């Protein structure tokens, strides 16, 4: 199949043919270009202006002043750091738990279908609703379940959202994305040729060796794919932060999305917020390039198969 997909030789196609090839692609491509690249260009333009909504009179061209403000703004860098911590933390947690669950739920046992179904449900729950519920019914030291659990364990009650705010955000986002990681990894496991495991069994390998020597190497591209998909989504975390901590305390949970939001729609400083956005974009591209290369590696492997 792949051979067909890539086999048609572009060199031979006539001009008319090449347009009839491109026509089905164009609407989607044009819309995606318009919705992602036009804002990008406008952001560059805005970022060179002094533009605060609260002072409509003073909108003017200001050169690179907003960038200077961005690079010297400690909170901006802190928010970048928070974004990295939250994205990496929740990705690792979701993948670790997701992997264990995928391995368990891939084996056959009574009620497996139901167990799978229950396990993937958190992914579908509306995040805003979940955050509101977690806030009052889970995290709250006076009203929440976690307070009761720490009491049971004889531990002091934890001020989750004040003192462990990053942990709390990581916890709730991991809860949402673990099922997703599990889904992808489960699919990866199902695609595993049986002979591989069998070979390992015949060799008398223990489960750890099976895992290390057979399952993990096989899963590697899937783990990479999962990591990519998760971090792509987790980098955009917004609702949980807005509803649980308002980015606090001391910007301790302000990620870059939330910080741009604060700057743009709370301080109404559109100029600086645009500069933040642009610097973030450049940093993200720098980070995403290796990720994309990784992804294309996964697909090249596919081609070889």
């Amino acid at each position: 199949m792949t051979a067909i997909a890539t086999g048609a030789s572009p060199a031979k196609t006539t001009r008319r043919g090449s347009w009839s090839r491109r026509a089905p692609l164009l609407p989607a491509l044009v819309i995606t270009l318009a919705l992602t690249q036009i804002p990008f260009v406008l952001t560059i333009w805005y970022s060179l202006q002094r533009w605060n909504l609260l002072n409509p009179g003073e909108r003017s061209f200001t050169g690179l002043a907003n960038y200077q403000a961005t690079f010297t703004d400690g909170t901006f860098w802190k928010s970048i750091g928070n974004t990295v911590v939250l994205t990496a933390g929740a990705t690792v947690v979701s993948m670790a738990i997701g992997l264990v669950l995928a391995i368990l739920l891939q084996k056959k046992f009574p009620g497996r279908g139901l167990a799978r179904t229950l396990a993937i449900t958190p992914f579908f729950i509306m995040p805003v609703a979940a955050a509101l519920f977690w806030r009052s019914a889970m995290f709250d030291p006076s009203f929440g379940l976690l307070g009761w659990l720490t009491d049971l364990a004889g531990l002091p009650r934890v001020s989750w959202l004040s003192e462990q705010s990053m942990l709390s955000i990581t916890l709730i986002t991991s809860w949402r994305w673990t099922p997703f990681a599990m889904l992808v990894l489960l699919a990866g496991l199902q695609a595993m040729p049986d002979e591989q495991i069998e070979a390992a069994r015949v060799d008398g390998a223990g489960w750890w060796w099976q895992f290390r020597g057979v399952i993990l190497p096989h899963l590697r591209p899937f783990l990479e794919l999962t990591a990519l998909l998760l971090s792509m989504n987790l980098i955009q975390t917004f609702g949980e932060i807005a509803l649980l901590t308002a980015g606090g305390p001391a910007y301790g949970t302000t990620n870059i999305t939330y910080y741009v939001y604060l700057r743009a729609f709370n301080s109404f400083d559109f100029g600086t917020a645009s500069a933040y956005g642009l610097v973030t974009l450049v940093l993200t591209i720098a980070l995403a390039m290796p990720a994309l290369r990784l992804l294309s590696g996964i697909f090249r492997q596919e081609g070889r198969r």
Partner: protein
Amino acid sequence: MTVTTPQSTAVAAPAEIRAEPRRRPDMDTARWPVAVLGWLGSLLLFSPIAYMLLKSFQSEIDAASPAPRLIFQPTLGHYRDAFGAGFWAYAGNSIAVAVVSTILVLVLAVPAAYALSVRPVPKAQDVLFFFISTKMMPIAAGIIPIYVVAQQLNLLNTVTVLIILHLGMNLPLAVWMIRSFLQEVPGEVLEAAAMDGADRPRIMRSIVLPLIRPGLWATALLSCVFSWNEYFYAVNLTTTASTLPVFMQKFLSFGELYTAQVAAVATVVSVPVVILGWICQRSLVRGLLFGAVK
């Protein structure tokens, strides 16, 4: 579709055949521990939702107790109230945004995926990576121009602006997913579909699309879920003509106990997507691999 259960052809080790001939060879050794652990893990993930369901039937006073109260006077009051206070307006918008943006996503993504797999344009791989790279752009980087342009086009606080943005948000993913499903279609069918000639669209419509229908449903589902749950655009670009996540956030602000009420509303708004998700589980799994493996 044959891909979901590759183990179906596996030959079980003869000594271990008991009730199910299709069981994989490594399964019996650790069957009960696996069952227990698997169930524990699933229940742990599900427990906050179970807890939410429980609280949704409690009075606010019962729901405010940190210790889970299992015995209580159940009430349906919160479900009744859930549908008041403008719920339907927001729910209608949510449905409109999710359904319309998803239909548009499919309408645009199917031809694009076709042009990237069955009858590929030059540099198809690069185009494909362009699509996915847009998903890596931080949404925050574009929100200001989006806001300003939407305002100039008089689109603020309309369902239209959300439809357009959700379309942009879900289109790249859909192109990838549908492309991966197209790649699973048997070669001869695609060859026919790839041939020049007037009946190409017909082959596409009458043979290829039915073949990938489960995949289309899975793509539609994922697009719906992301659209249904989307909060950032909704909260920044709309207020009254907005979707359910914006409706939900209001509960934070009355200073009343709201746990049980939120639990009920959260249940109501989550049920549709959860059920769809359960139904489409299998094709969803495959779609999420983006054709990385077959």
